[in-house]
Every structure is written in C-alpha cells, then in structure tokens.
C-alpha cells in the first residue's frame, strides 16, 4: 500500500523543532466545512457520501500538485493501516471506526490532511512542530482557499460556516497546542492549570483529542467557542495562554532540579534503564517512561538520546506502527516483545 512510504519518515510535527519545543510538541488547527447540495453526514445516503468523496478527490487533483499528496480511500484500507494513520494523528478515531464512503487526502510531508465524510463533509487540519499556530493557519487557510475556489461551502450570513454540530459553527476552527507537562504532573500542580483554563473557556484533552485519556503527560489545549471571533482572535486566545503554562512548567522543572534533584534524576535514570533492558513492555508503560526520559533530557539530567530519537520512539512503538514495521499482524504478547526489542535497539542496547 502506498502509505508505507510514510514509515521511513518522521512526521513533520514530530521533528522537535520550532519555538518552545522542549514543552510544546506541536500546534494544530482544523477547519470544519460542509458542501451545499448535500445533507450533513448523519442524514447522508451512501450515494451522497460517494458523491462528496469523488467531488473532493476531483477538486484536489485539479488544485494540488500531482504527487504532493496521497488520496486514501478508507474503505479500501485494512484496519491495521487505518489505525496506523490514526497513530500518526493524520485521521481521527471516528474516521477509522465508522463505515461507508470516506477518505483522507494527506499531504506527503504530513503538513496537512483533509478528512472527507467524518463528522462534517470536510475536516481540514494542519500541524507543525513546536509553538506556531500562525504558521499552521496560513498553511491551511491557503488549502481552504484552493478548495473553496472549486467547491461551494454551506455558509450562513449570520452563523458563518455551517457544521453538523452547532458547537463548531462560525469559523469551524479549533486551534490546539500539544504540551508535554511532566513536571506539573509530578508536582501535582496540573489540576490548577486545568481549572484556570476552564475559567477562560479553553478545553484540555489527552493526546488523541476528545474523550481520550492523557498518556505520557501530553495535553492538548484548544478553544471551545468557534463563533463570534475572527480566526486570528481564536489563535491569539490560545497564544496568550500557552506561554503562561510553559512558564509554569519551567518553574516546576526548576523546583524539581533545585529541591528534588535526586528523586527526579532517579526517575529519569530508572526509566532509561528499564527501556534499555525490558524484554516485554506495554504501550502505556513505554509512553510513561519515554515521558520521564524526555523530561530528563530537557532538564539536562540525561545526555542522550536526542529529542528526535525520543519522538521516533513515541511514534513507532504504538501498536499499528510496530506491526507495520514488522510486516505482519502481531498478537498483544508478540507486540510487547517486539516493542521492547525496538526500544533496546534504538536506545543502543542489543
């Protein structure tokens, strides 16, 4: 399958580059759009879904350079490949799990992706490494303009872009920034952060978006309201709050370094020792220890590996990625063994 080409590369948003990259993993923006002439997804017939998919595919091949994207028909993809795309955060769980005609147009450099027939007809989302929502916005705004020059979006003079759920109406835009906050978790300050975010109407979610549990101390912060503010105002709202959380996390790290040095060094060293020597390990346990190692590197407690190596491990030790590397499906027990082997290999132990 053509998506195998992705295996050899690290997604752009995981390069560990960009501003504040020791704490801000990535910045993402998504736009929800629907086409006129079709009902929203819950009322769409299979014929409607196919027409929407084909229309988007035709427009994309006109508007985007040939070979610059993959057009992936989700119905033709087996469950392992669908999960694989979800683990790379290119498509949502909803797109993996639902039935019917649906697709994803994926930029070859994984800078943006368009999900077709998810909750809305189109979900355009872009991502980049580090803290830079403006860069993502200019990228997907351009994608949106290109699509809009050929497609007619459902738009209302009062309500703006119309969406299947009124929580997304208006700009249809969700700005989210993924943060790594291990020191705030260790020092049990994280709940305070959540409470203050709720007060300013920002949402906090786990790594895979709505309804997911925080794993590996990763949190996504995003806007709740989408109507009555311009796109730049929504970005500014997130932009104003993120540096405060970053500063708070740094403060917590300083405290750990000054007051809890041995304890935090012990945690990071043990995590490294464990991942270098384990013979079988679950995905959750791996994430937990990788988070400690990442913290250790950024606090100067551990000398290696480099952050891109850690990011590679976060990505490639996930179930579908392991199986794709392995070339065939693995049982859970086999995956845990393969995961431990991959970790030992990448961390320099045989």
């Amino acid at each position, binding site marked *: 399958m053509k998506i195998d080409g992705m295996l050899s590369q690290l997604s752009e948003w995981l390069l560990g580059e960009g501003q504040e990259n020791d704490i801000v993993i990535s910045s993402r923006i998504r736009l929800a759009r629907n086409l006129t002439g079709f009902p929203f997804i819950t009322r769409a017939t299979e014929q409607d879904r196919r027409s929407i998919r084909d229309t988007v595919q035709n427009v994309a091949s006109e508007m985007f350079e040939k070979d610059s994207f993959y057009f992936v028909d989700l119905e033709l993809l087996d469950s392992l490949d669908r999960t694989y795309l979800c683990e790379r955060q290119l498509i949502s769980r909803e797109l993996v799990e639902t039935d019917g005609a649906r697709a994803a147009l994926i930029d070859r450099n994984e800078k943006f992706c368009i999900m077709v027939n998810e909750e809305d007809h189109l979900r355009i989302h872009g991502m980049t490494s580090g803290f830079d929502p403006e860069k993502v916005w200019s990228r997907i705004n351009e994608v949106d303009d290109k699509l809009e020059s050929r497609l007619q979006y459902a*738009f209302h003079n009062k309500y703006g872009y119309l969406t299947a759920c009124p929580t997304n109406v208006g700009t249809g835009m969700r700005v989210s920034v993924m943060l790594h906050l291990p020191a705030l978790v260790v020092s049990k300050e994280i709940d305070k952060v959540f409470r203050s975010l709720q007060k300013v109407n920002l949402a906090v979610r786990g790594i895979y978006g709505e309804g997911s549990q925080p794993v590996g101390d990763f949190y996504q912060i995003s806007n709740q309201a989408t109507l009555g503010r311009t796109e730049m105002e929504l970005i500014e709202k997130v932009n104003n709050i993120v540096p405060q959380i970053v500063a708070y996390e740094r403060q917590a790290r300083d405290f750990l370094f000054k007051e809890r040095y041995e304890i935090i060094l012990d945690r990071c060293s043990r995590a490294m020792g464990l991942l270098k020597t384990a013979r079988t390990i679950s995905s959750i346990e791996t994430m937990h220890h990788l988070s400690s190692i990442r913290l250790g590197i950024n606090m100067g407690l551990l000398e290696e590996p480099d952050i891109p190596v850690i990011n590679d491990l976060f990505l490639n030790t996930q179930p579908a990625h392991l199986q794709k590397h392995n070339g065939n499906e693995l049982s859970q027990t086999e995956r845990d063994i393969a995961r431990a082997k991959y970790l030992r290999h990448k961390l320099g132990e045989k």
Partner: protein
Amino acid sequence: MKCQKCDKAATFHITELTGTQPLEHHLCEEHAREYLNESSEQNDPASTLTSTLSQGMAKQMSANKAATELKELDQQTCPVCGISFYDFRSRGRLGCPNDYDCFAKQLDALIINIHGVQEHVGKTPKRTGNDSNQRTFLIKLRRDLNEAIQLEEYERASKLRDKIKEIETE
C-alpha cells in the same frame, strides 16, 4: 460534545449562576432531567437562575408546565432533510444546512450558550452562492427521489431525476 455523566451526546448546556463562579454543565437529556430535578429540590427556585437550551426548555420540562409547547418544538421537522428537533436533541447532530433556519428559534439559545454570541465575524467564502437556495433544494429533491424509488413511483422518480440534473448543471 459528550455528556459529562455518560457517553451520549450532550444536548443540554446549562450554566449555573448561583455560586461565585459560573458553573457549566454539558449533559444528555436524561442526565439534564436528573440534574434539574436535583437542583430544584436543593435550591430556592427564586435564587436559581438557570439558562438552558431553548431558553429554559429543560426548566419547563421539570415544571411540566409547558409540556405541549415543548412537544411541539420537538416535533417540528425540517422540510429539506426530514429530521425533527427531537432527533437533533437526541443525536447532537443536525441533518442539513437548512436546519439552522428551520430550527433558528430553538438553536439561537443553544448557540448563545455555547459561544456567548450569535454572529459570525470570521472568514467568509469569496464565492457567495447566489444559488444556495437551489443547492439546498437539491437535498430535498434527492430525498424525494429515494422515496419515489422505494415506493416504485417511477414516473415521479424520472421527473425528479431530470430536475436534479437541471440544477446540478446550472
């Protein structure tokens, strides 16, 4: 958005203004009913200001006062896509763009509750669709076509097909 107490869609968005801080609750119908019953038992009704979906629709629900009016609002159906407002409340998803006009009365309060405002000020498409009513009409025509086929009314189906083709090629 999911209900805070179960996996169903949250169709009631309640802002409680009794304490020092406003408290937001996002609940499914069942849990909203439970919540409102609880709060009306616990609090002095005069001091409780509860703003909810459809301007206190849930309040009416617990008071059983305007049950018929609520039922009427719930049964209102979009002529284009065929969903009732009740369908939207139980699934949390609208059926077509026309629902925003058809259920405007009910949705306005909900939208204010979620976003705090009602008017879009962001990006607008450069192509303003003058024919957007026609495009919405297409949704209805396609639905009628499916119905005609199911009822084996082939003559009607053929006419509908021609009409759809006409609008699509305009």
